């Protein structure tokens, strides 16, 4: 499995646990989970590109 695939699985797992822990309502849990998931994946992407341009 690729690094990206594992990162997406990792982000989905972490987001679902935090979403469930930090919100009560099911819709709010899903919304928060999606925000955390997006933040993790996009953040990792951005960090990857920053490191690529910095250290290449």
């Amino acid at each position, binding site marked *: *499995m690729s690094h990206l695939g594992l990162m997406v699985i990792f982000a989905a*797992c972490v987001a*679902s*646990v935090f979403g*469930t822990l930090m919100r009560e309502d099911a819709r709010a849990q899903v919304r*928060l989970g999606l*925000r955390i998931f997006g933040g993790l994946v996009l953040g990792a992407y951005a960090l990857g590109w920053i490191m690529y341009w910095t250290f290449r």
Partner: protein
Amino acid sequence: MSARAKPAESSHPLLACAIAWLVPGAGHFMLGRNRSALVFFFVLAFMYLLGLGLGGRLFPFQMSEPLVFLSALAEWTMGLPRMAAFVGGFGHGDVVSMGYEYGNTFLIVSGLLNALVVLDAYDLAIGRKPVGKAPQVSI
């Protein structure tokens, strides 16, 4: 200082913590949070199994190596899965395999997430976390 919420019915804080530590989500199940319990159980068990499947290592308590010690501590916050993996002879960890670091990450983070779940079960059991209204933390 905010007023404490009513503790969940038939809640024994230490029992809830012990059960939550042994089986991810079981503490929430005991406190009547069945949906949360299912999410915690399936997600954390999946992460743990994936970590083992990727070749992650079950770290020993090695005081001379602080990071190894902390990793062991994090992995032991998954009580029963950690014991089962130990008894079953899994988690030797092959340091040259491609999935070694990924596996360690999944194993360690699943344990740390379960530590948060245990603390959440404790808060619910003593009534620190209001039933029906979770703290709104803006992200």
